[in-house]
């Protein structure tokens, strides 16, 4: 309701705006400084990956998967290669499975670090940003020494991984894991314990459980709304059923909890990494795969727990070397709907923190 003598107006935020983490655009309708409605406009990074997939062979498409959610490249590839392996019924050697899990979880940690970093940047906190990026570099170093590329390692192949890790990988990973508890404490102290952060974020942007389920929200955002659901537990893929870890769940449903749950997830991921490091066997890293990858005509829907939400790969094969359809269900794309649903009534400065808490990556939203 507008006050007499005033009128609603709308402003355009993005696509080039520092707090939209990429090329996201929203039309914000305002009454004074209270937001009444937000219309998200996406597609500024739409690259047509699903169409590209139809003109590539199965193996050629693997590098593209890294570029979906570029903050956590390995986990996207994991979903794709596993879907194709399921179609072809390939059994993987043990060591490859372990290395895949190690890479996927490292990617998750890197992604969550960027999330916390950019969340703090949006409320003008430069120090947590530099701390998180400092430690993220150590993970990228691990990627680099193995695969050669920092952010998009393109390390997984259909039927295994491209090559074994170098000698210095395991000691470096171990030292990172040893430092992890201390680092987490540091992030907690500098960001989550900060008074400004708490007053800006606590009880802001409530996403109730029922609404989250109805909006099909997945991933950490759902878990911060009190639903304990994780594909790694609910429908274990790869070798996630061998590890002991918890699914963190918070009941605050607000912006603060959506940030905090990422910290707990880093903790759980490092738990998985520690176990993987302990149990990893020696052996080959590539299964016997035919030279030409030609899955039989069939359909598969395979889903994995991406850092941003659930990622689903629906692959329809027609018996040739190229897929008939590759459908990518990305968590972030569906999670965008959260914003217009919960934004009404908050001030314009809350819009920025609520947006940051959704943890969108535009590569994944737009595909």
């Amino acid at each position, binding site marked *: 309701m507008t006050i007499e003598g005033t009128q609603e107006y709308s402003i355009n935020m993005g696509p080039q705006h520092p707090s939209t983490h990429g090329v996201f655009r929203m039309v914000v309708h305002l009454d004074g400084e209270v937001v009444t409605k937000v219309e998200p406009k996406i597609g*500024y990074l*739409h690259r047509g990956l699903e169409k590209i997939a139809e003109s590539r062979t199965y193996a050629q498409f693997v*590098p593209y998967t890294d570029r979906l959610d570029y*903050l956590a490249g390995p986990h996207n590839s994991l979903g794709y290669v596993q879907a194709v392996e399921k179609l072809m019924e390939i059994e993987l050697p043990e060591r490859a499975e372990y290395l895949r899990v190690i890479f996927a979880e490292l990617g998750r940690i890197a992604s969550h670090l960027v999330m916390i970093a950019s969340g703090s940047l949006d409320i003008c906190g430069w120090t947590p940003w530099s701390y998180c990026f400092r430690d993220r570099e150590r993970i*990228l170093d691990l990627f680099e020494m193995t695969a050669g590329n*920092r*952010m*998009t390692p393109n390390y997984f192949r259909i039927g295994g991984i491209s090559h074994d890790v170098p000698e210095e990988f395991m000691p470096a990973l171990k030292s990172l894991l040893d430092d992890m508890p201390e680092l987490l404490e540091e992030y907690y102290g500098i960001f989550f314990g900060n008074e400004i952060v708490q007053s800006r974020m606590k009880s802001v942007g409530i996403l109730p459980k029922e609404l989250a389920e109805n909006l099909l929200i997945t991933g950490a955002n759902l878990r911060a709304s009190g639903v304990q659901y994780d594909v790694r537990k609910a429908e274990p893929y790869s070798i996630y059923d061998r590890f002991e870890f918890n699914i963190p769940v918070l009941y605050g449903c607000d912006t603060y909890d959506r940030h905090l749950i990422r910290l707990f997830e880093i903790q759980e991921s490092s738990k998985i990494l520690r176990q993987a490091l302990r149990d990893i066997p020696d052996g080959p890293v590539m299964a016997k795969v035919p030279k030409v990858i030609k899955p039989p005509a069939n359909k598969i829907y395979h889903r994995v727990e991406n850092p941003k939400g659930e990622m689903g790969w629906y692959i329809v094969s027609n018996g040739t070397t190229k897929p008939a359809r590759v459908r990518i269900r990305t968590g972030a794309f569906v999670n965008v709907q959260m914003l217009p649903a919960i934004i009404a009534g908050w001030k314009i400065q809350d819009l920025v923190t609520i947006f940051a808490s959704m943890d969108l990556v535009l590569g994944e939203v737009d595909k």
Partner: protein
Amino acid sequence: MDVKKEKELRDAEVTAEKNILRTNIEKFLNWGRVHSFWPTSFGLACCAIEMASTGGARYDLSRFGYEVFQASPRQADLMIVAGTLTRKMAPVARRIYDQMPEPKWVIAMGNCACSGGPFADSYAVVPGADSIIPIDIYIPGCPPRPESLIFGMLQLKHKIQHPSKVRLVKYGK
């Protein structure tokens, strides 16, 4: 050493003692510009994250004086096109370029901005940002390492300081 040269050097020394340097205005302004680019943070895709890491603690872009990433194109003189330029985004990119004050330069960071990269045959992607905006420096890589970005910016510095090196060569008559 001949006498004439020696005299010149001595004169130069005397002027230097008075804290005076002789140069022309263009060179002087360029000297200022190349040591303090203000890039506009035009991050499009994956490369934007590498651009952010370049500003981070390890690579420390501020060693060169280039770390002031401006959100507004009106206060920037360098545009780093970091990522895939889609056809939906192209008019926006052009508009941001037009809003920047002169003199201005553009760096295409990453394969996508250089030539469309892996997405060149997609229906929604502009094959190369250079068809939309004039580009000074191309940095290949998918995504390029932070060192590549720093090298690219130093090349741009070189290019501005020595315009004669990069002028178009006329072939034929």
